[in-house]
């Protein structure tokens, strides 16, 4: 063993550590309520000039996590979201890949829509999905309109090819809920 041995491994270790492993982190599996879906509002008008609460930093980090988005992609199919929303184009439910958001397009607003349901037909999934699963779905829904990092999305669909690969989806602007629909 030469004297360069420890140095070499140290360098490799540092590179590995720096190489965006936040993207690959798996979540706290045993803490289901660690990231409870908060109550949030899709509205933009608040009396007295108050504003929508700022987005929780931990919630925002879901969008950069490849595993969260991959699980969201699986759940989107198995929980029948694609039955109403197809692969982002909509059907019984509205399109999720465009810039129009009826009830808010921020990740916590999407998670709240899943949790509470919405009038006009979105079912409420409280008690049928865990909070963690709702975050995973919300992160995936965000990826449908290109909001998330391209190195965290999956590169292919699990079924017959439909929309362009997620890595090529261009980022749509996110109109607020009261934007012109």
């Amino acid at each position, binding site marked *: 063993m030469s004297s360069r041995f420890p140095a070499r491994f140290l360098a490799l270790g540092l590179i590995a550590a720096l190489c965006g492993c936040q993207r690959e982190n*798996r979540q706290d*599996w*045993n803490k*289901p*309520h660690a990231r409870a879906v908060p109550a949030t509002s899709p509205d933009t008008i608040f009396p007295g000039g108050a504003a929508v609460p700022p987005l929780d930093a931990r919630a925002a980090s879901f969008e950069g996590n490849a595993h969260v988005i991959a699980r969201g992609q*699986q759940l989107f199919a*198995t*929980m029948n979201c694609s039955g109403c929303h197809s692969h982002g184009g909509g059907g019984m439910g509205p399109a999720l890949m465009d810039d129009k958001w009826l009830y808010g397009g921020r990740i916590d607003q999407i998670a709240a829509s899943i949790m509470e349901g919405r009038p006009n037909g979105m079912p409420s999934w409280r*008690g*049928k*999905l*865990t909070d*963690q*699963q709702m975050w995973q779905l919300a992160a995936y829904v965000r990826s449908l309109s290109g909001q998330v990092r391209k190195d965290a999305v999956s590169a292919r669909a699990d079924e017959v090819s439909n929309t362009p690969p997620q890595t090529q989806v261009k980022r749509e602007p996110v109109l607020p809920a009261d934007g012109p629909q």
Partner: protein
Amino acid sequence: MTLRGAAWALLAILPGGCAGAQNALGGEGAEGSNFVQLFTVFMIVCAVMYVLITAGLLIALWRRRQPLTVEDRRHHETSSAIRPALIGWTALVVAGLTALTVASFFTDRSNAANSASPKLSLTVTANQWWWDVEYQSADASRTVHTANEIHLPVGVPAQVTLKSNDVIHSLWIPNLAGKQDLIPGRVTDIQFVPRKTGNYRGQCAEFCGIQHTLMALDVTVESKADFQRWYEAQLKPAPPPATPQQLAGYRYFATRECSSCHNIGGTPASGQIAPDLTHFASRRSIAAGTLPMTRANLARWVADPQAVKKGNNMPTIGMTDAEVDSVVSYLETLK
């Protein structure tokens, strides 16, 4: 520990791997026993050849101990014994290889014959990290849907169609037969002709993700009568809950997260993407061979599946102890 001691310990462990529920040399199935016979033939032929070669080598080394004389180096007269020896050796090798080829051929024929006319037909679909098992029937209403277990009647050739819902898995029931891959987008198959009753263990044999190691399969080979009895029981829907605690568990199961994924026949819970639980309590293990089926293990699993089998697709919900107790009480009724 000395090297010698280690060698004896290794020898002691080895037979352990050759006995019991997951034994590649068990030969309890037709293909498995064919394999064992072939293995034996190979071992014998190769052992004989090995002994002869080693003996030859040792003899050559022994004779080589005498120093060479100048005459020996210059005059390499061919010994009169070399020619017949070489002919004999070639003949021995040919004979050995022929024996191996013929043995292989007949083994292959036997396997093909065994799988020629199956009487039982099942489909095994591999998921991460559990097995979906469906028994086909000409009468559609007599198909049986179960998970993580296979029952086979002894002596009856069974055809198993293999599919995968996600990544490549491999089905390996060592006592009965060899491995066969389950590949998404393709349909493969394997045949079993079990010859001895007993409980065996199957295993996923192709790395398929974080819980590949905890993806086992309980295989039960039983008499034809026992198999029929099991089959008829599987066709019945789940019994209704009897006690208040079971009722509470049933209500939780049917209206909360459980029914999003699981199916219990005869109840409103008809999820299709997780193991079918209609007769869950009659199985030997939980979560594809992860834990033996006991009430304590059930409670452990239902309360926190992520602690038991981290990364698997069943989420930890965060149920209260009372909820866990009632759900487990209900699940125990699903015999």
